[in-house]
């Protein structure tokens, strides 16, 4: 039961990886800690539930990682995906700390394993959690409980009282009752606002109504909003979100990774008008999968269809939903409720434009189209071998970039340039400082773990003084 008369040293808001890292490290530093997770227990853990690895620097092969992955290469990778929208000082600190945070997580009970099959060749750069993110969360929750962190589920914070950069109390609903939580410091680790469709509509209009949210429905951004309203400085483009094309039949929320589709480079993608709209073979899939959410979002009705033929069936991981199959393009058009004549024409034009070349799914091969607009620059083979297979595509939102600005101690910075007195942040809610654009597999968990532990320790130290 929640005891309203008690004052805690540290209030952690959120229940994902960053929140647990903060709660455990604050508790280990001697602070009394309360953690408020807005989800019920079965859905605890935010987007961490759907993750499976953490990108980590390492100087040589380990029991779970091959070769070496050094700071400069890691930084170059980050620089490339963000196009420079990052903070070098914070980013390099995160990169260096990842080599310490993986053993720290293992000490808290997280089990790592060598890379899985079909994971875009991450065995050198990413440490995988045995069983995935939910197994990681189970271990961290167990450790936090045993260490004496007071954990509440169904506990949503809707307002923080902030006066001149000083947090004085949190208004929350805990188990259906309105409560005021008192604490000397607060760590905000409650994620972005990607599950708040109304907020997304501010930037995307009614199209956002057709977006699918890949992760937790509890990322409503209420804490982010109350921090920004309370004078905290923001980072990251509020209009931007990470969006990939996922199976259009996925649930509105929480479909997770299994709804992804990797078939786009091996066939064609048409919109509701049965017409192609972008080069499906522009680059290798790991470098292109993250642009397709936006591409589909810009199509009428925010829907598209990926089509492959028999030759390509085995080249990608199966979808979580059954493939839509037909023996002819016309039959497929009927099943997809597309205009038959237009789809047949689109496929005919595409097939006629394919120039035979060496086909190699692993490299930028020489199979391309000629005289076709838009072109397909690699892996272009005619769709001529039945059966034909299609998957509907919709934009799947992973996370938003808007967040609060922090320094290297995870302390939130105020709009007037001063540091907050007792407000800290970790995880997606502050990752816009480091990841202003794009994404690097396993980097969200890297930021969450590193800043989680730092925020926990900083908050415990501040509470003591």
């Amino acid at each position, binding site marked *: 039961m929640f005891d309203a008369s008690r004052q805690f040293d540290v209030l952690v808001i959120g229940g994902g990886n960053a929140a647990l890292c903060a709660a455990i490290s604050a508790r280990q530093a001697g602070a009394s800690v309360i953690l408020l997770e807005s989800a019920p227990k079965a859905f605890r853990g935010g987007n961490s539930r759907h993750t499976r690895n953490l990108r980590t620097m390492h100087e040589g092969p380990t029991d779970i990682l091959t070769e070496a992955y050094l700071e400069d290469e890691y930084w170059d990778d980050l620089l490339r995906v963000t196009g420079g929208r990052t903070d070098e000082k914070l980013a390099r600190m995160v990169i260096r700390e990842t080599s310490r945070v993986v053993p720290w997580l293992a000490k808290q009970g997280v089990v790592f394993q060598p890379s899985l099959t079909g994971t875009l060749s991450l065995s050198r750069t990413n440490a995988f959690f045995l069983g995935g*993110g939910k197994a990681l969360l189970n271990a961290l929750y167990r450790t936090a409980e045993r260490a004496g962190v007071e954990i509440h589920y169904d506990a949503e914070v809707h307002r923080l009282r902030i006066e001149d950069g000083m947090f004085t109390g949190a208004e929350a609903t805990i188990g259906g009752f309105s409560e005021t939580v008192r604490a000397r410091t607060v760590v905000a680790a409650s994620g972005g606002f990607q599950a708040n469709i109304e907020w997304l509509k501010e930037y995307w209009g009614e199209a956002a109504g057709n977006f699918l949210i890949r992760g937790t429905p509890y990322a409503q951004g209420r804490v982010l909003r109350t921090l920004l309203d309370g004078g905290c400085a923001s980072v990251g483009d509020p209009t931007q979100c990470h969006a990939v094309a996922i199976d259009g039949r996925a649930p509105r929320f929480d479909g997770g990774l*299994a709804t992804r589709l990797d078939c786009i480079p091996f066939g064609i993608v048409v919109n509701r008008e049965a017409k192609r709209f972008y080069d499906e073979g522009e680059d290798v899939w790991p470098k292109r999968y993250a642009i397709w959410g936006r591409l589909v979002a810009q199509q009428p009705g925010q829907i598209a269809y990926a089509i492959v033929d028999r030759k390509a069936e085995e080249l990608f991981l199966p*979808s979580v939903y059954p493939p839509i199959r037909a023996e002819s393009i016309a039959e497929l058009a009927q099943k997809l409720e597309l205009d038959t004549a237009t789809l047949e024409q689109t496929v005919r034009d595409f097939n006629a434009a394919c120039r035979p070349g060496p086909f190699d799914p692993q490299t930028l091969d020489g199979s391309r189209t000629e005289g076709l607009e838009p072109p397909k620059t690699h892996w272009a083979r005619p769709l001529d071998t039945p059966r034909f297979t299609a998957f509907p595509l919709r934009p799947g939102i992973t996370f938003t970039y808007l967040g609060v600005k922090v320094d290297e101690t995870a302390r939130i910075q105020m709009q007037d340039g001063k540091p907050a007195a007792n407000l800290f942040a970790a995880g997606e809610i502050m990752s816009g400082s480091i990841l202003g654009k794009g994404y690097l597999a396993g980097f969200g968990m890297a930021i969450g773990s590193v800043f989680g532990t730092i925020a926990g320790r900083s908050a415990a130290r501040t509470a003591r003084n």
Partner: protein
Amino acid sequence: MPDDLRRIVEQAAAESEALREARRNFEICNACRYCEGYCAVFPAMGLRREFDKGDLTHLANLCHGCKGCYYACQYAPPHPFAVNLPKVLAEVRAESYAEHAWPQPLARLFERNGTVVALVTALVTAALMLGVKLFSSPEVLYGVHTGEGAFYRVISHGMMVLLGGATFGFGILAMVVGGLRYWRATGAARAGRITPLPVAKAAHDAFTLKNLDGGGHGCNDRDGDFTQVKRRLHHALFYGFLLCFAATSTGTLYHYGFGWQAPYGYLSLPSLLGTSGGVLMCIGAGGLMWLKIVQDPEPVARRLMGGEYALLILLFLVASSGLVLTAFRGTSAMGMLLAFHIGLVLALFVLLPYSKFVHGLYRSLALLRNAMETRRARG
């Protein structure tokens, strides 16, 4: 309609709800694969794109019920995908026991298996005790017998060999036929010819219960916590059973080889093997029952619990009655204790092919097929 399509349609129509649910689960798992490190089921699943009935039966029997995947699953209920592999695979396994049982009419014994095991145990034991009571005089039955051949004054050696040999022989025959039917029906022949290396690998995995190791830290016996408890209890039960079997075998050797008749001294080899085996079986069977009582009921097929409890109780009774008989064999209670113990052993023999006991057979065959497929996939 083409022939192969008709076959698929007919097969689909004939499939049970559990099979269809297992396929639905695996189609989700195959797009996720986070659980790859837990056990052999997920790499075996990853070798497949589509799951026919034979594949699903194979994967279900390969599953050891460690439940690691359930607690790690981002799609477990109440998520709308409602993935619950341990539960649905247990149901598919139970259906496969019935489907490959021989002779086929006895497949029905797997419906309400708990009741069947309890009834057969009660009937066989009661019949033996009644028989002993009817056919031996009270002086013999309630007398004190010591020295060589003491047991055989109550039940003759010839009768013991006849009853034990007939029931055990039939149990083994029925399991061999069931195993062959299983191997054929699940399409295991597609994995190629049986060669020594996969056999050795399968035996290693079976004898160590490698797949209850959850990738190094044990399995989720009770809840989300990882322990080696279930694995160790199963080891106690299984190796205790083997020790008892070894006790009987050495006893047979003593009898026919050296002409020494039971009962043997407390420090003799058959007695030491039997006593230690009996104690281990009691610990194992009792512990596994305790786990069933305290475990989280969500990833468990509740309708199979009756049969599982019944077999554990039977094994516990067989072992504990043997221990009690050993302790009191020098008293006037020996006659009825012997009849009770032998009755339970015969009931176990009769039930070998028609209880949860057969899981050992099909699981071993699944481990063998998996070792063959894994070897072939590696090239």
